[in-house]
């Protein structure tokens, strides 16, 4: 009896029956969906920061303190963007597809128990409802692919649906394993039955569920959908603006839902020593989500046929075997004593070893005979990178001092020393220096000097050719302008410019230049 139902019964006494049921339900739905959207925003932010840390870079930190408002900034950007509707496709279905794609992800949360009594509706076919609703997403993908009216999104929609369907079956079978142990479909009773978390009792079931769920979410290593190197953006190529953001939200809400299901089914939901139940569930959900994008930042992508082969020849038979074994255990040891734990781990290991030896991923050449050790080592490496200092340089605030010999733009011209010999003009490969001189009393006086930095190669040959050391490369590098004409620098500008010469071609100047900031400064100083 969830808290909501008690409130509804209590309210029955005061309001007409239909109002007593409807109004609290709507209010609870609004509260729940706003909470979910908030958590999804947090997920988007955590994923972008997390993947950044896996790749030794910072991740977004510009919008708001530590980049917290980055998802909000994305949302605003997407809202403002123009919403293109393809002319050839079917307008109404094109408009409807994102909603159908988003709706199941949100509907799953109606049965996720955040606490012993904090559940939206504790219907006793909880997990069956989840599977039924999650198989609805397929229709949304079809509509998007068909209504976009372009060849690539249709092909990609077909591929994605084939992937979703072939990974749905192992998903259901692994859940069946859990149901045998918990004995009931309702989510609350599943969690209560988990005195020992089912991840230990059902290791193989957990593995299959997790892999199939990653494929269901279209995430690496199964992210056929937005495979940049192939059909560029999959079935949501034609979507932009608000509709695209709905797809994006649907993906992350579905990821949140799957993590919640994994937490509830395998990691004993809200159970935990002293923290409040809802907090325990959120911790477990975040852990599962971190593993999801940890895989995303390590593993490359499988090809279409390998992906299908893996589903039908790899996961499906394993799931069936797991189901038989669990059923056999249910008959032999009905109480599921904890010793089963070791037995199950052994069986799982045996099956994986047996199956990976047998199963050829790419036809006779490659097999998982290393039992996925390669993938595990890769994941371990990316995990170790979490603890390394990110090497991102915040450019405008942090400035790197270039090397003493740095060949920056805008030459530095010394008017007194220059004797107008035009050696530099002759040495320049793209001949952009033109000097006019006139007879002065003690030698030539430079009348006009024009250097067109729009075409300059910054090769430094002119500086090397200057016999009287009147020309230097400069050390700054931020010279940009909107008009090509302003790139042509005249004599007066050279004289007026603030002189920051670099030590290129003048080794003696190097001593008093600031030292270069190195990414890996030499260990022993000196």
């Amino acid at each position: 009896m969830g808290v909501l139902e008690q409130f509804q019964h209590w309210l029955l006494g005061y309001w007409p029956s239909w109002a007593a049921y409807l109004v609290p339900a709507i209010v609870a739905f609004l509260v729940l969906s706003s909470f979910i959207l908030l958590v999804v925003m947090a997920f988007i932010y955590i994923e972008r920061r997390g993947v950044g840390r896996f790749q030794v870079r910072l991740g977004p930190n510009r919008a708001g303190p530590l980049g917290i408002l980055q998802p909000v900034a994305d949302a605003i950007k997407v809202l403002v963007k123009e919403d293109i509707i393809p002319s050839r496709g079917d307008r109404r279905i094109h408009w409807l597809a994102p909603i159908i794609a988003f709706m199941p992800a949100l509907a799953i949360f109606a049965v996720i128990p955040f606490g012993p009594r904090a559940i939206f509706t504790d219907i006793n076919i909880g997990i069956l409802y989840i599977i039924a609703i999650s198989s609805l997403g397929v229709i949304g993908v079809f509509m998007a692919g068909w209504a976009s009216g372009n060849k690539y999104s249709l092909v990609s929609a077909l591929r994605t649906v084939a992937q979703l369907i072939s990974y749905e079956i192992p998903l259901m079978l692994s859940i069946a394993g859990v149901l045998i142990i918990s004995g009931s479909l309702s989510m609350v009773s599943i969690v209560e039955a988990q005195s020992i978390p089912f991840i230990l009792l059902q290791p193989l079931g957990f593995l299959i569920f997790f892999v199939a769920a990653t494929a269901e979410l279209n995430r690496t290593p199964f992210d056929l959908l937005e495979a940049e190197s192939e059909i560029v953006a999959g079935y949501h190529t034609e979507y932009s603006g608000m509709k695209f953001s709905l797809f994006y939200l649907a993906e992350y809400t579905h990821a949140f839902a799957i993590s919640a299901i994994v937490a509830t089914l395998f990691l004993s939901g809200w159970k935990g020593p002293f923290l409040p139940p809802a907090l325990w569930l959120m911790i477990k959900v975040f852990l599962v989500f971190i593993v999801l994008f940890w895989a995303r930042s390590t593993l490359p992508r499988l090809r279409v046929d390998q992906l299908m082969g893996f589903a039908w020849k790899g996961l499906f038979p394993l799931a069936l075997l797991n189901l038989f074994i669990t059923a056999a255990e249910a008959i032999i040891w009905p109480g599921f004593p904890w010793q089963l734990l070791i037995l199950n781990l052994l069986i799982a290991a045996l099956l994986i070893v047996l199956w990976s030896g047998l199963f050829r991923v790419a036809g006779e050449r490659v097999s998982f005979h290393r039992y996925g050790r390669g993938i595990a080592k890769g994941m371990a490496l990316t995990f170790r990178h979490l603890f390394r200092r990110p090497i991102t340089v915040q450019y405008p605030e942090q400035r790197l001092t270039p090397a003493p010999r740095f060949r920056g733009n805008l030459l530095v011209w010394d008017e007194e020393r220059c004797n107008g010999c035009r050696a530099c003009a002759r040495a320049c490969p793209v001949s952009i220096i033109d000097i006019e001189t006139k007879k002065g009393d003690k030698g030539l006086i430079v009348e006009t000097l024009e250097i067109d930095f729009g075409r300059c190669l910054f090769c430094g040959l002119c500086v090397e050719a200057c016999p009287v050391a009147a020309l230097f490369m400069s050390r700054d590098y931020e010279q940009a302008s909107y008009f090509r004409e302003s790139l042509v620098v005249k004599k007066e500008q050279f004289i007026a410019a603030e002189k920051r010469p670099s030590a290129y071609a003048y080794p003696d100047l190097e001593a008093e230049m600031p030292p270069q900031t190195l990414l890996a400064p030499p260990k022993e100083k000196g």
Partner: protein
Amino acid sequence: MLKTEPIMINFGPQHPSTHGVFRMRVTFDGEVIVDLEPIFGYLHRGIEKLCESKTYTQIIPYTDRLDYLASMSNNFAYVMAVEKLAGIEIPERAQYLRVIVAELQRIASHLIAVGGFLNDLGAFFTPFMYMFREREKILDLFEMVCGQRLTYNYMRIGGVSHDIPPEFLPALKRFVDEMPGYIDEYDQLLAENEIVLARSKGVGVLPADLAINASASGPVLRGSGVRWDIRRADPYSIYDRFEFEIPVGKMGDTYDRYWVRIQEMRQSVRIVRQAMAELPQGEVRAKVPATLRPPQGEVYARIESPRGELGFYLVGDDSPHPYRFKVRAPSLINLTLLRDLCIGWKLADAIAILGSIDIVLAEVDR
């Protein structure tokens, strides 16, 4: 039976995974590639015609822009050709500096090649970011030596433009000590990764005799099991003084080309270590007349650039400008077999194969 008409897709010239402005007209029957025609010319700047009106020293910045991922090797090859033509001897220290810088450039170029290849396989930028971290360290070293990070213009006819600053050797020592550890990390991340194996083992197999017949060179040739490296077969400059192995693949598939590049990085570190130890003191640049006028005659000098045999063919005619300036571009010639390698495979494999051949469009189109 179900008649499927072949679909023709234009792949490129703007596409996230063609390395530059490269276009392939690919014809599919369902998922399988039936025909593939590479189309070049989007980056053709006519460098060979341009350099016929430049003096020999002014050409050096143009060679930087030929294969912008390995401009040190381009300088090296061009400058060696001119010295051979003009018969100029260069000091010992300059030889060693050139070898150190060329090998560092090979590591930097292989880092991008392998990072790009893994990015095409779908590893979401992670290996790319790790390899770019190492490449940054090499670019810091180059910036220390010649002042620029991409188009170095470091070598001159008769030696190198600058001697190395005092803080160069300690930084190089740290890099050389740490690099093998990082290469082991790349191996641990990806060499045995089942998905990388599944996507690259046995994909786009190039048999050895076909590779030789199609004058492939560099990691593409060595990946097919042909032990041919110009640094060993026709040692130029002082490469005969260093001992290093030539890694050679077995099957000639995409995985072997990836593996060969990783091993070559280890060998380059060995060479740099030996060169650093024997670095003599002395001049870095021989006396060369300002406007060099090489004698009548022709020369063909070739080196082992990261992409293969990079050759410069010069015809001198006693004038400060070369009469004919020709570049033998390894990337262009390695693409001769792209069609044969990709037929029968799927689009995702074609991208992996293109990534493993590792082309740079500036060198292909010149």
